[in-house]
């Protein structure tokens, strides 16, 4: 009977119920949308980090590690073939030499129209399988350089343009390398899009690396658990004492810091949703309780216990939260479907700011079923909570006082 009464009370003021349910649903839809976007960007970022930038694990000379952001070529991994031979066959593994260079570029062949510093990745044409950068692009050969798409745009370079690098060899001598832009590569990772790529054998010769490389990257499936990566990292560190082995999380400190900060962002979004839902529900339930004070008095006079009246109003509030929640899930589902299938193109925003997310174009959401469950529970629980105060207040006066109001 109580549930039937609660249901009928909800349909008693249909417009009010619908408006409140929609207010709740909008709040929950916003929560589901935000969650999907954040989870989706995280997934995309992790994938794009591993596929284009950090690999799953990376090995450095332990003297190189502290200064790895400066790409010091004088502290490389000597004789990398020993490691490569040990691990090849067991893992997908790629050596690279990464160095800094001043790039002199030309809009027309002459004169020089500008220069900028850039990060050059020397890659091996036969062994760069850890990364997907060159899936659709030819690898650079001797005397060639492949530019990341954003770098090419910044220096207005086109295929066939000349480009000169000013850098230092392993021993610190200045070196000038004249190159021709052989291709321009676009990836979903902005770090890669701002880099340039050369042939590792040519770089070995030009920088007098004596066969050394600055890093060896190792690929594991993208969804490999962090714990498994850490275990392998430890095993390899023990196996090669002079080598540091860093997982992708250790390398992507900026993203990890952002992910941690995002927890508070999620809290903020929940707070917003809480405000939207509570304002909607408290207003409605306050009115519902206020205008039915006399009814409450009558029910009490007839012998209905306070507990039963509590149940009646909480069932109403819960029902309202449930209706709003279900509509919210429906709206949320539609928005998530759009985010997953179509996505939103934020490239105009990301292009000019330094975002720790590694997503360059269309950002896609992800299905996250726990968020749907949480949204529904949140809607119902907040609705019930926000109803408690007005009901408590309405049940405080004596029956005769309540019936007089």
């Amino acid at each position, binding site marked *: *009977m109580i549930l*039937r*009464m609660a249901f*009928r*009370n909800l349909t*008693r003021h249909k417009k009010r119920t619908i408006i409140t349910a929609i207010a709740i649903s909008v709040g929950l839809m916003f929560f589901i949308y935000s969650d999907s976007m954040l989870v989706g960007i995280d997934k995309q970022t992790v994938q794009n980090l591993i596929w284009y930038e950090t690999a799953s694990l990376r090995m450095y000379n332990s003297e190189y590690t502290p200064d790895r952001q400066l790409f010091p070529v004088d502290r490389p991994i000597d004789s990398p073939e020993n490691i490569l031979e040990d691990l090849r066959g067991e893992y997908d593994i790629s050596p690279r030499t990464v160095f800094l260079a001043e790039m002199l570029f030309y809009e027309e062949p002459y004169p020089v129209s500008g220069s900028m510093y850039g990060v050059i990745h020397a890659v091996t044409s036969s062994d760069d399988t850890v990364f997907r950068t060159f899936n659709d692009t030819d690898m650079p050969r001797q005397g060639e350089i492949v530019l990341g798409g954003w770098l090419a745009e910044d220096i207005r370079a086109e295929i066939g343009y000349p480009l000169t690098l000013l850098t230092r060899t392993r021993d610190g001598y200045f070196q000038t390398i004249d190159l021709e832009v052989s291709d321009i590569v676009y990836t979903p990772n902005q770090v890669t899009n701002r880099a340039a790529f050369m042939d590792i054998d040519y770089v070995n010769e030009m920088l007098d690396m004596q066969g050394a490389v600055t890093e060896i990257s190792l690929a594991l499936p993208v969804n490999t658990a962090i714990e498994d990566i850490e275990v392998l990292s430890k095993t390899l560190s023990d196996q090669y004492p002079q080598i540091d082995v860093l997982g992708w999380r250790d390398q992507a400190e900026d993203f990890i810091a952002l992910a941690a900060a995002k927890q508070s962002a999620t809290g903020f979004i929940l707070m917003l949703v809480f405000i939207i839902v509570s304002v909607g529900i408290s207003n409605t339930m306050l009115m519902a309780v206020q205008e039915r004070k*006399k*009814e409450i008095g*009558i*029910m*009490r*006079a*007839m*012998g*209905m*216990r306070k507990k*039963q009246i509590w149940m009646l109003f909480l069932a109403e509030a819960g029902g309202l939260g449930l209706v709003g929640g279900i509509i919210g899930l429906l709206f949320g589902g539609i928005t998530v479907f759009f985010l997953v299938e179509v996505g939103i193109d934020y490239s105009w925003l990301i292009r000019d700011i330094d975002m720790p997310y590694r997503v360059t174009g269309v950002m896609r959401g992800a299905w996250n079923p726990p968020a749907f469950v949480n949204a529904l529970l949140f809607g119902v629980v907040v609705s019930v909570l926000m109803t408690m105060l007005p009901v408590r207040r309405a049940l405080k006066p*004596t*029956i*005769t006082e309540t*019936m007089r109001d």
Partner: protein
Amino acid sequence: MEIQALRGVSCSIAEGEFMSIVGPSGSGKSTFLNLIGCLDIPDEGSVEINGVDISRYSKSELADLRRDSIGFIFQSYNLIPVLTAFENISFPLILQKIESNKIRKRTNEIIARVGLSGMEHRIPSKLSGGQRQRVAIARALIKSPEIVLADEPTANLDSDTGVSIIKLMRSLNEELNTTFVILTHDPQMMEHTRRIIHLKDGRIESETS
């Protein structure tokens, strides 16, 4: 400021009585009804029902007493708007947690008795004033209470409907031997009651039988 709604009132009501309480506004009629309906507890003195002082009861015991032994009829009917006539009438039995088939049987009987057959599935807003008051009477009587307290039951009704309601209450009183205590200003109602208590300024001014 302390206001004494009733002072020195002493009366006893016997089982099966059909009596009215009359008096001007502010005479203490409603307070009197609230006290014998266990809606209020007296600050001083005592109210005894079946020889037990109600001030000894806890709030939940008082709620049970109202639920099981006291029926209320109000001037403005005070039906639950979302429930049908049938559901409003059966509501007290649901509170008593009686089996549903017994509730259905008893409700149908009383609906027929108060002349509401065919209207049981209407909600209060689809009933006339007289029909609503019949629902209220049926609701008050369905649980076979020991006493029914009626607060101006004919005040919102036209004269003919008022008379039919009075006759209904009177006949139910005679049939079921249920005690009726009625607050009223209605001379027609007073004509039908066997005992009239006149209240003024919180005191019993006179009593006629």
